[in-house]
């Protein structure tokens, strides 16, 4: 009862004209920043942070939260339209979103992405309101042992992403793991595989890698196929064709809800974040969805699962931030810095000491979510026009975006060199049918797995038994064994059956 009263009070705070305006501006900025490859939510929030010090704390935080949130919307736009993920979680959105755009249905993909983001965000915030602090406590129980087990489950499910040729998929995965080992050793802090170059000391930079392997490789591809006409009639790209049919609406609701629940939970876990949320949600849909096996060919369900997972994880990440003062993500860390600068101290006492602010922030997340949805849907007609641009114009424009994005990631030309290099790598991978998504996911998840796994062994003094001694990890390991063993068993049983059949005939 208290919660509801406090929340209503929070809405009173959030819905002042100033704050509403701040949320709307934040939403628009967030979408723009999110759509620009290379400037993720982390940099977006960090760059805007000093600006908001001129506001009062509630308004400032509302604006920053809206930016953070809207980023997730924007990140998927460039993934869908030009196949360059604006941020990491959008890699999963692009898997189905870009094929949809290529089939002449970019509007549907964008629309689905917006609706699923909205559902994900809403579910995430509702869970945050009701059981946020409790959930944050539960998330704490995921130490190195549990996280290592969870990531093992995630890594093995990469298998469903491998595409037509498992061998090529495994090669791509291993390549990703290999590249991720460059840079500092996560546990000992010593440089590994830096080949004596100070640039490689920090490892392969992620943003130039993504932009190159997805974006610039396309430019090379377009140059090669420059006279190839588009597969669809560009006159058909109207707002009406972008609307989802009633049937499509019905198809995206279940995956969105499922993914929202999973995503929120993943977001609460320490250090997991929106990428893992989007990734596991997509995998869940692939396994549980009715047409799961068709995912990756341009299905609205795929877009919905990835986006709902990603946005709900972003909301879930607020739980540890607010109730424990511990950021669940890099962007969370910046927001925490912001809270401190405003003179607020997130921690176990925040809800008691500063209820007006805390509930104002939570209420503003609701407001920001609705405002962002409105803004996001209104810009769809402009967005889909991008696909009407002739290839001869697209090539220089995408190249410019690639160059600027990879430069701004670390403010250095080295980023551009890496981007060009990975552009060539990506081009040949695509040409010879090596899937790119497993490479990227292995690159992202690999180091986290390595670190947690090694820390788990440090805790147990080298004994693997620890994975079975802790209840959460024991359950995860059991799940892992089932998923790995079941296809083998099924195949063996299947073979037997055909054999007996053959004999009886």
């Amino acid at each position, binding site marked *: 009862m208290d919660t509801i009263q406090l929340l209503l009070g929070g809405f009173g705070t959030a819905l002042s004209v100033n704050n509403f305006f701040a949320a709307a501006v934040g939403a628009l900025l967030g979408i723009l920043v999110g759509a620009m490859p290379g400037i993720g939510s*982390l*940099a977006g*929030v*960090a*760059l805007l942070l*000093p600006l908001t*010090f001129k506001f009062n704390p509630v308004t400032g935080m509302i604006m920053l939260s809206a930016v953070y949130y809207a980023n997730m919307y924007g990140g998927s736009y460039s993934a869908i339209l030009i196949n360059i993920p604006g941020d990491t979680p959008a890699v999963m959105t692009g898997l189905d979103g870009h094929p949809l755009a290529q089939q002449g249905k970019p509007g549907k993909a964008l629309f689905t992405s917006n609706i699923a983001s909205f559902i994900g965000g809403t579910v995430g915030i509702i869970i945050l309101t009701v059981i946020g602090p409790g959930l944050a406590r539960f998330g*704490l*129980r*995921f*130490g*190195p042992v549990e996280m290592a087990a969870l990531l093992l489950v995630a890594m093995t499910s990469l298998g469903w992403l491998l595409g037509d040729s498992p061998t090529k998929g495994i090669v791509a995965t291993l390549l990703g793991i290999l590249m991720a080992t460059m*840079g*500092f050793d996560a*546990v000992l*802090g010593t*440089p590994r595989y830096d080949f004596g170059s*100070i*640039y490689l*000391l*920090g490892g392969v*930079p992620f943003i130039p890698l993504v932009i190159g392997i997805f974006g610039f490789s396309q430019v090379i591809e377009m140059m090669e196929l420059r006279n190839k006409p588009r597969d669809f009639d560009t006159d058909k790209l109207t707002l009406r064709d972008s609307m989802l049919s009633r049937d499509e609406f019905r198809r995206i609701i279940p995956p969105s809800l499922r993914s929202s629940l999973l995503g929120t939970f993943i977001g609460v876990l*320490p*250090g997991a974040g929106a990428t893992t949320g989007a990734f596991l949600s997509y995998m869940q849909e692939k396994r549980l969805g009715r047409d799961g096996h068709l995912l990756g060919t341009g299905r609205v369900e795929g877009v919905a699962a990835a986006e709902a997972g990603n946005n709900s994880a972003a909301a879930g990440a607020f739980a*540890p931030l607010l109730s*424990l*003062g*511990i*950021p669940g993500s*890099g962007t969370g*860390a*910046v927001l*925490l*810095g912001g809270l*401190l*600068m405003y*003179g607020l*101290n*997130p*921690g*176990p*006492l*925040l809800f008691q000491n500063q209820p007006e602010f805390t509930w104002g922030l939570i209420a503003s997340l609701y407001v920001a979510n609705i405002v962002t949805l409105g803004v996001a849907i209104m810009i769809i007609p402009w967005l889909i026009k991008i696909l009407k641009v002739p290839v001869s*114009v697209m090539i*220089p*424009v995408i190249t*410019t975006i690639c*160059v*600027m994005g990879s*430069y*701004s990631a*670390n*403010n*250095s030309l*080295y*980023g551009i060199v890496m981007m060009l290099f990975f552009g060539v790598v990506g081009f040949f991978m695509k040409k010879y049918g090596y899937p790119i998504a497993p490479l990227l996911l292995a690159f992202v998840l690999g180091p986290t797995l390595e670190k947690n796994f090694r*820390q788990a062994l*440090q*805790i147990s*003094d080298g004994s693997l038994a620890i994975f079975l001694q802790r209840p959460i990890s024991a359950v995860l390991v059991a799940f892992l064994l089932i998923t790995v063993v079941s296809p083998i068993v099924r195949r063996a049983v299947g073979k037997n059956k055909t054999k007996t059949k053959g004999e009886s005939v």
Partner: protein
Amino acid sequence: MRRLFLATVLVIASATLVFATGEVEMSDEAWMPDRNVEWYCTSSPGGGSSIFTQTIIEIIKDEGLVDQELLINYKTDGGGAVGRREVSRKSTAGHTILTFNNGDLQPLVQIEGGDLDDFTPLAVMATDGQILLVPADSEFETAQDFIDTLQGGGRVIMGGSKGDDINLSNKIREEVGGDLEYLVSDSTGDALTQILGGSIEVVIAKPAASFELVSAGELRPLIAATRSRFGEPFDAPTFKELGFDIELNVYRGIVGPKEMPQEAVEFWSDVFGRVVKTERWQEGYLGRFLLTDAYLPWDEAIEYMQEFEDLYTASM
């Protein structure tokens, strides 16, 4: 079509502007900045170094200490190595400065093969200290329990962040002994998550990062690694009191390129000397992040940083 062309041209033009950083010629009147100042920060936006840098810049602006704009350049390639090397080679007559803590000096010395001669120290601004924390219900009721466990050969799992926290854990292993396992986290926040979740028994933290958790009684202070005790709520015996020679300071400082003209060095040193006198610095920064005022002008900063360099060289 024409509009598109125009747009493309605009995009390319702005891109060219962004990249046109170019080398700028030397000027004789270096005793005062006559163009934009580029301030390098080799950590990500939002972290401790970035808050430190942003705070100083805002105070400089508010107090009108420098007429020109100060722009932060976050250069995080190669764990900061690239930014450090770039600054050390700049000849911009005092228009380039770098945020430089001992967390930056250590990799410079131990991994990148550089030393302080690559830079010109401008000031030491503040020092910070480390403290060991345990959960409220920890079996280590007093500092002595912890020491006894280790000296009795017991196994203790400790966590903390990188850099100085690793140094401290090594120092404890050397001086106290025992089977001390140290889990490195990327940040103090991650390490605090581990201790709240029960994965580790003791955590190394700085007061600022753990203030709320300690005030709320979730964690309690065990032993301070500083010269004297911290104030409440971090009041706990120091290693010195317990008879161990363990004392580590962490400093936050600022340096310029190797070839910075002396006039510029004095100018900046003086500007930072005025920054630390403002109320905003004392209350809004040092007070909030529980740092100790330790301003040293350029000449004393050189000696102070040199001591750390010697320490890092010795422990290689």
